[in-house]
């Protein structure tokens, strides 16, 4: 069964304290792995798509990486405005119209 697991469930960081969020997955043929940011009361907002092991994408303080079994979202020198829930999702080759989401990591960055 296709599955996505994110860890930790919640993370509190001091401003400037770098860390990583994990997304491990089992899927029958990965078509794409996606990272989203979700602010309270809002819909998920797209951050990155990764397609193959070894691929990396960067945006401001965020960097996403992908291996054959997991993805990491690295947050470098975070600021309070980076506080949000970060969601990971995968799209399998079979049934390519279906996206499977993890439960998310709630990140709180303290000033």
């Amino acid at each position, binding site marked *: 069964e296709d599955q996505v697991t994110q860890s930790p469930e919640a993370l509190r960081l001091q401003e400037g304290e770098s860390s990583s969020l994990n997304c491990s997955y089992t899927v029958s043929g990965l078509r794409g792995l996606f990272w989203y940011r979700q602010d309270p009361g809002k*819909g*998920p*907002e797209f951050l990155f798509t990764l397609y193959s092991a070894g691929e990396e994408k960067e945006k401001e303080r965020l960097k996403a990486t992908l291996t054959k079994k997991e993805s990491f979202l690295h947050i470098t020198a975070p600021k309070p405005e980076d506080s949000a829930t970060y*969601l990971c999702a995968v799209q399998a080759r079979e049934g390519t119209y*279906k*996206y499977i*989401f993890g439960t998310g990591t709630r990140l709180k960055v303290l000033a």
Partner: protein
Amino acid sequence: NAGVTQTPKFRILKIGQSMTLQCAQDMNHNYMYWYRQDPGMGLKLIYYSVGAGITDKGEVPNGYNVSRSTTEDFPLRLELAAPSQTSVYFCASTWTGGNTIYFGEGSWLTVV
């Protein structure tokens, strides 16, 4: 472009009532989805559509119905509302070969 638009934003229903959550997109996307999000449970797929006239069940379809008469609109119907349907509902869309899906702002539904 407005993107994906959902209405209403908030709604309180009594047990046994019915209602329709509206979703419209103006990006000419052929794939559309309805998800529900419960605290700590992630996004669960209710129904999806690959084009006008074509719909199929996702992981949690019981108690819901959908239709897709146009490319733009994908309404979600709740029949005989139950407290278990209290949740946040998100509509999303993408195009064939699209590398991500775009979400609406969500509809908060409480069944009492």
